[in-house]
């Protein structure tokens, strides 16, 4: 398989799922003839027909609500919300039905579906098109939340999310939809949900991130080694709910220092949860420096002329790491 962008890798995973399981179907705005506004579903309607790759009316609540019904009936819908900012329109159906139906019916009705949406900033878009509100779903009982960081794990994680018997929120970091290519194996690949990936081992400090922020994090980790002789361990969460606490604890009990980097807002964000788990769990006694979060501040993603300085960058990470290394 030639090198793929994330968009191509996701298209591949969807194609494989549609091909392997008659119950899988896709639904969303403009995903059919148009192949999705980011072309993630390109050509799939031609291949699988309009009843399995369905253009829906412009109503997100309607999309998720009917997808829940389809899942109850036994289909496996993969619903696309055109931008994650518009999941707010479907919040009620996500929280009240998608996340809770299984529990409500004591497992009689499993909601085996995936809600996909591009999320995050960095594409010079208008307001409401750059949201990173995965924490809403992480705080919502009954859901799993998955966020890939590159083409290869995007395909494998999407496959795993589709295979998971319950409802999964799959957020795609659109800033890196086409930012780089990766080799993707010829045969279908999957990954276990709930497992973080140690992207780089190190002893001095743990850096935890996910999604598009893995790019500045990687850059920072390289510079830290090369320029500052700091060996950082870089962890890519991949599954944001449930969090692979075990892997995080192991790393931080080893390094004693930790920085959490994400695009979402700070207060009650994913970084807060990770910090709390470290500070109350087995890692507390190993901590030699305060924990540090580098996140979007608690303001709406700014208009695109000024968004380029909004999110943490490699220098922020390097600065924070150096500070923590010097902390006594």
């Amino acid at each position, binding site marked *: 398989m030639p090198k793929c962008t994330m968009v191509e890798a996701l298209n591949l995973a969807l194609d494989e799922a549609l091909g392997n399981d008659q119950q899988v179907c896709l639904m969303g705005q403009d995903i059919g003839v148009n192949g999705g506004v980011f072309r993630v579903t390109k050509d799939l309607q031609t291949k699988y027909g309009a009843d399995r790759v369905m253009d829906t009316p412009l109503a997100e609540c309607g999309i998720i609500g009917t997808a829940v019904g389809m899942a109850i009936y036994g289909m496996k819908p993969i619903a696309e919300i055109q931008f994650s900012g518009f999941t707010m329109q479907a919040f009620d159906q996500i929280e009240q039905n998608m996340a809770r139906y299984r529990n409500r019916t004591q497992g009689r009705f499993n909601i085996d579906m995936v809600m996909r949406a591009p999320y995050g900033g960095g594409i010079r878009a208008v307001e409401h098109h750059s949201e990173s509100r995965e924490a809403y779903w992480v705080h919502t*009982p*009954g859901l799993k939340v998955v966020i890939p960081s590159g083409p290869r794990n995007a395909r494998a994680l999407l496959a795993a999310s589709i295979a998971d018997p319950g409802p999964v929120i799959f957020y795609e970091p659109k800033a890196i939809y086409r930012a780089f290519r990766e080799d993707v194996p010829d045969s279908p690949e999957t990954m276990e949900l*709930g497992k973080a990936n140690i992207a780089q081992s190190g002893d001095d400090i743990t850096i935890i991130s996910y999604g598009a922020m893995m790019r500045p994090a990687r850059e920072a980790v390289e510079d830290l080694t090369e320029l500052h002789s700091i060996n950082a361990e870089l962890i890519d969460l991949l599954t944001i709910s449930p969090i692979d606490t075990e892997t995080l604890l192991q790393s931080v009990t080893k390094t004693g220092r930790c920085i959490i980097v994400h695009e979402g807002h700070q207060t009650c964000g994913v970084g807060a949860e990770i910090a709390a788990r470290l500070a109350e769990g087995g890692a507390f006694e190993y901590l030699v420096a305060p924990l540090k979060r580098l996140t979007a501040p608690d303001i709406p993603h700014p208009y695109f002329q000024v968004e380029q300085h909004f999110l943490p960058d490699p220098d922020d990470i390097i600065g924070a790491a150096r500070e923590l290394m010097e902390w006594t």
Partner: protein
Amino acid sequence: MSGLEPDKPIEASCDPMQASPPLPASGFNTRAIDLGRIECLQILDEHGDIEEGLQPDIEDNELLRVHRAMLLSRAFDSRMLAMQRQGQMGTFAPNLGQEACMIGQVWPLGDEDWFSPSYRAFGAQIWRGWSMERLMTLWAGYHDGFPPPDDVKDLPFSIVIGSHVLPATGIAMAMRRAKDPHCMVVNFGDGAFSQGAITEAMNFAAVDQAPIVFVCENNGWAISTPLDKQAGNEVLAARGAGYGVHSIRVDGNDILAMMTAMKEACDRARRGEGPTLIEAITFRMSLHTTADDPTVYRDESLVEPWHNRCPIRRFELWLTRTNRLTTQDCDRIREECEQEVLDARAYFRKNATAKPREIFDHIYDTITPELESQRMDYLRRLDRKGVE
């Protein structure tokens, strides 16, 4: 980026003075659009008389089954109220006076059809195969009562008003795709109909031509809110028409009209002819729920006329007049129903068990590590408190 010169604007592809005759036919039709009519169906009037020529072709034993179901619903209703008043039951929503609506809408359904009820639909749930003890378990706050029985194609009833209509529509959309020749019936109230999610559902169903029947039980009230504060147009069926959903109005207190209209709508759906909206006109004669006190907000005089419109009364007038039943039969069935409810209560009292140790068991197919650790903490609390 295209190679355009900086100062040359992109050519407007519609240059006003360039287009040349001959002109095509007008793109705009100036003829007024007739929105059509909402038919209003009543078969059996308040006097127990049947409208000339409208008597439906329904077998007697079906009529008697339905009659019994209405009585059973009412027996359950008053018993549940009593139990609630005695502290043996959680908040409960009575259905007094809406029994024709309730039973009529599920009567045409077979085991392979689906039903998605609102929360005031116990009569229909019993008809569909929910045992009364299960419903008691449910209203008494035990989780075990909530999932539909294994062999019943129902959704659990909806607590968040209106939130079940989209999933019900999704099921119908899936049925069409699966070439499943059955249908879905979903019901909701006049208040619920104010939720935008329901119009989204009607639109999805209409676009998809999904086999679904939307039943709006217009009982005039949503807690304290009367219809005229709820809706700008009190003909709720007109909304369906606006969305391309075949719509009719039915006397919801007339069981024969309900059965007839529902049968027709279900058959339409099964034939692949798309969704129907049935606005059933009825009245909430009793409390909204046991937590409610209607004397605060509505005049008893509004309830008064509905006593004579009682769906059971009307049906029995006709059944007895046409010698399908005697009044003695009616009394006997009423007593039998009462006994059935008491038996269910006995069973419920004996068997309902709180299972505090199971509250983590149904969130995920396989419990996640973080949830497992929270579960352990919780179980330790139960241990400490000595809770089984």
